């Protein structure tokens, strides 16, 4: 009798090499080289296995064997976005509508109108030139002092704001609290400096009361951006008390488990550096008092020692001082002669094995060479960059700025003209310099009203 054998489950039972021929099921095979079932892309049949294609277009390791691999956890490419603030006001004849310069690669820059404009002190008659330090990069976001408040003692004054920008959201995460020493309802004049403290906190130094003339109240706050909690470092002085010997905080550093505060004694010099064990000491200790022509403008820790960049008054040499690990302060670099009182080492940055300093030396005769970047290798200071004459509207104006090491492994300095009474709007008054090795410097951006605060987000 004719019959028919139907095998519509071919391969459905896979390979069987253990059973004898008469025991095998119809759907079984004894060999299936390069055949498989493919639930990801077939119609349920027995199919050729997928092909294999190389992930990498070029052989790795010189064409040798790939011995193992692992996928990195949570790997993704973080986009670095640099931010440099743009000040308000008509310094160069027009008030830019933009609030920040930004770049995702450090070399090509553009302007944006969000987030909120950062705080700049010169428009509020703040004369410490510290406004380039009112911003930090912290946990892949930037935190900065906003320009959206009315400073004391202007009528209707309000509390300075602390903003967080994560690349998308501009959020006010804190308002600087009153300083009881300056008055029960007296707001801070403005934020002077920020610096990271630990994994959860950063420091905010503020000038309380009017900046000029000096009223002598300042504080350093520890801020937790997660909880929004401010904690004052050191004592809370009584009403009317004078903190920091009447000096204005200008810069911060953390060194040897202590917080270090540089100050300016406007118009007088003889500024001090204070230190304190945060959460432990109840008073600030005066670590040193500098000479009559010196104010402290920048701090950095380099190879285990603390360096202080000075702003000098008339007749003082622009200088960098160093504190060794046992407390002795000595001059590390003294150069030129300040002729007008506007010479300053406004930023100190450790990059690789070297310390870099941004210098404006008003005593240099050739005005085109007044702004320099200096490098210190632990032994010798050298000049690695000198401002070009065609950069900025006027090389005669004092230039201050700030530097950071970016997440792209490059060193950046923002160099901004500091002079509210600047000349024409002919060119730019702020520039960004970038270097990947500390030796070769590239001018990557110029922009009117660009100022020294620089930071980055990683998103």
């Amino acid at each position: 009798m004719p019959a028919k054998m139907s095998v519509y489950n071919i391969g459905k039972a896979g390979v069987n090499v253990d059973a004898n021929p008469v025991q095998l099921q119809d759907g079984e095979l004894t060999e299936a080289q390069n055949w498989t079932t493919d639930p990801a892309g077939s119609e349920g049949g027995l199919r050729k296995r997928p092909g294999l294609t190389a992930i990498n277009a070029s052989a790795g390791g010189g064409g040798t064997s790939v011995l193992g691999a692992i996928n990195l956890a949570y790997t993704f490419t973080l986009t670095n976005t640099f931010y440099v603030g743009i000040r308000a006001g008509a310094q160069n004849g027009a008030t830019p509508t933009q609030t920040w310069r930004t770049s995702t690669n450090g070399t090509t820059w553009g302007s944006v109108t969000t987030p909120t404009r950062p705080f700049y002190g010169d428009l509020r008659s703040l004369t410490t030139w510290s406004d380039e330090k009112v911003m930090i990069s912290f946990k892949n976001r930037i935190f900065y002092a906003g320009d959206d408040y009315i400073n004391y003692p202007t009528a209707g004054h309000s509390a300075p704001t602390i903003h967080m920008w994560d690349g998308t959201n501009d959020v006010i995460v804190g308002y600087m609290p009153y300083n009881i020493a300056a008055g029960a309802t007296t707001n801070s004049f403005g934020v002077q400096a920020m610096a990271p403290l630990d994994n959860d906190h950063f420091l905010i130094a503020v000038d309380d009361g009017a900046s000029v003339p000096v009223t002598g109240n300042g504080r350093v706050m520890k801020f937790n951006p997660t909880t929004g909690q401010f904690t004052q470092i050191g004592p809370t002085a009584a009403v009317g008390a004078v903190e920091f010997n009447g000096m204005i905080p200008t810069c911060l550093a953390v060194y040897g488990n202590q917080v270090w505060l540089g100050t300016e004694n406007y118009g007088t010099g003889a500024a001090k550096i204070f230190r304190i064990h945060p959460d432990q000491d109840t008073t600030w200790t005066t670590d040193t008092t500098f000479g009559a022509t010196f104010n402290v403008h920048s701090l950095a820790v380099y190879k285990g020692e603390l360096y202080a960049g000075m702003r000098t008054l008339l007749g003082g040499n622009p200088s960098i001082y160093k504190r060794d690990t046992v407390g002795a302060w000595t001059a590390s670099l003294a150069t030129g002669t300040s002729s007008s009182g506007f010479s300053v080492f406004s930023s100190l940055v450790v990059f690789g094995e070297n310390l870099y300093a941004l210098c404006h030396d008003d005593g240099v005769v050739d005005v085109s060479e007044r702004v320099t970047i200096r490098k210190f290798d632990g032994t010798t200071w050298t000049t690695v960059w000198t401002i070009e004459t065609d950069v900025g509207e006027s090389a005669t104006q004092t230039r201050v700025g700030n530097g950071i090491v970016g997440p792209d492994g490059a060193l950046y300095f923002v160099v901004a003209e500091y002079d509210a009474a600047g000349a024409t709007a002919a060119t730019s008054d702020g520039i960004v310099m970038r270097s990947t090795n500390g030796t070769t410097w590239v001018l990557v951006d110029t922009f009117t009203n660009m100022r020294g605060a620089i930071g980055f987000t990683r998103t």
Partner: protein
Amino acid sequence: MANYSLSQIGTTLNSVLSGGAGTVAALTLPSNVTLSTVATRRPRFALLGSNAFLVNSPTRNLWIDRDRNVMPMNLQPPIVAPVLTAVAGGSLSGTFQVKTTFLLRDVLTGEVVIESPFGPVSATSATLATQYLKANGLPLSKDPVAATSSDFQIANRYRIDRRLYRTTTGPGVPFFPWIDVEGNTQTAVQDDLSDAALDNVAAPTALGNPPGTVGSSRLVLLVSWRGRLWGVDSEKLDDVVFSEEGLFSQWASNRFTIPPKGFDARGVTGFAPRREALGVGKTNALFQVTGTSTANFRVVKLSENVGIEAPESVVIYRDVVWFLWKDGVYQWDGEGIKSISDGKVRAWFTTDTYFNRSRFQNAFATIDPSRNKYRLHLANAGDSSENRWVEYDYVDKIWFGPHQRDDVTPTSAFLLYDTNDVAIPCMGNSTGFLWKDQATRTDGASTAIDSDLTGKFHDMQSPDIEKYFGELALISKIQSAGTLTITPYVGGLDANAGSAISASMTAGRERLRRLGTGRFVRLLMRHNTAAQDVELFGYEVGFHEVGRR
């Protein structure tokens, strides 16, 4: 999303981008660190959080951060004690002792990532009387940490600092964090921090380095489980060591010995981390570690005469473990340990017909989550490289293979993630390439996949009766092109090959020639043309019995 993998290719550690051109970039290793290519020193990777680790092949254990900076996994401890003196000024009084550690600090975040074990304790200081306590002769680390900058590796991202711990006056017994000295340059520091102002948290007690911190030993295996790294000591191959929870640099003295000690020269041969247990395999037994902390970790023997033969054969997916032992592949899940090859393909593993069993130790495997397959790479019989692989469908519980590709030799297998964050099975080969599946049925650019299947001897339930087999009808998925070659074997179990039949893959259904007379019919099907797909739905053969001879 761009996914990156780490891959050891020859003596280089590389970053490989899963998308685009799959850019391969060699990572800069710390100075004085090299990678071995010796078979017994295969690279063993593990992840803990966002950190990756590489052991066994490097001359010292390596840690790779999310940005692919490569650093030592641990720092060697200080070897000298500070010398304490009293310095005028300050406000500290009493006698003290100090000891130090080295720190690896992330300059970008300020976070301490690694802390070395303690160096020796200093002698007791002279009695201070309202003075500073000065620590002289601070140790300097010689560990390499500076990475060369690239487009993603950040130069000098990490820095070695020193941390000093101090007693209270007396000197007291506990040490407390005192001062962090930034950098690896200064050799003296002083401070007058009062006892009351010392950190309330005493010095850590779990500092310690694993084997592989220096070049004299290494971690042979490495895996992550319960938020810890677990490894095998190359000097004591029966010992499992493990880190503190969440702290890859702190290993204290955490250690188990897996019995029987000294049974063979291989010791622990594999880890299998499941959700609630860490499988620990030896060549003759399988153990599990259970518990949640050092207070209640315990080792239990699960099975004798089943163990892990090849460390790289172990694959875990959805809390199910598959691994190769001497006589086949086993599955360990909530229902216990069982062979998944017995009764189907046991002969693959217990005879010398199919594979080179002397190389089972070198087998490697991965998982194909999309196609529900466990892929195990083995050496063909008589060959000395793992040039074949078999597949186990863990849903249908069936096997396929042995597969092969004709142009290159696989050398490793692993699971990576594509640009859509989808897990894809990959294999490395002997020419520096990582391979992944592609829909096109071609290996590489143009190599055909030689697909060859052998069906059963169909006997129509009457193996002793002669039959006449009529036309063969083949049903398949309609393709745009292609021809399948079918070779019928008609006769007894020793039937010879008949004339080949060509079946078009473009028809969907095709009636083919009559097959002939015999007790059995068996079909071999082969397709060996590049870029052509074949999917078979089934076949029919008309027949009638002729009689019994």
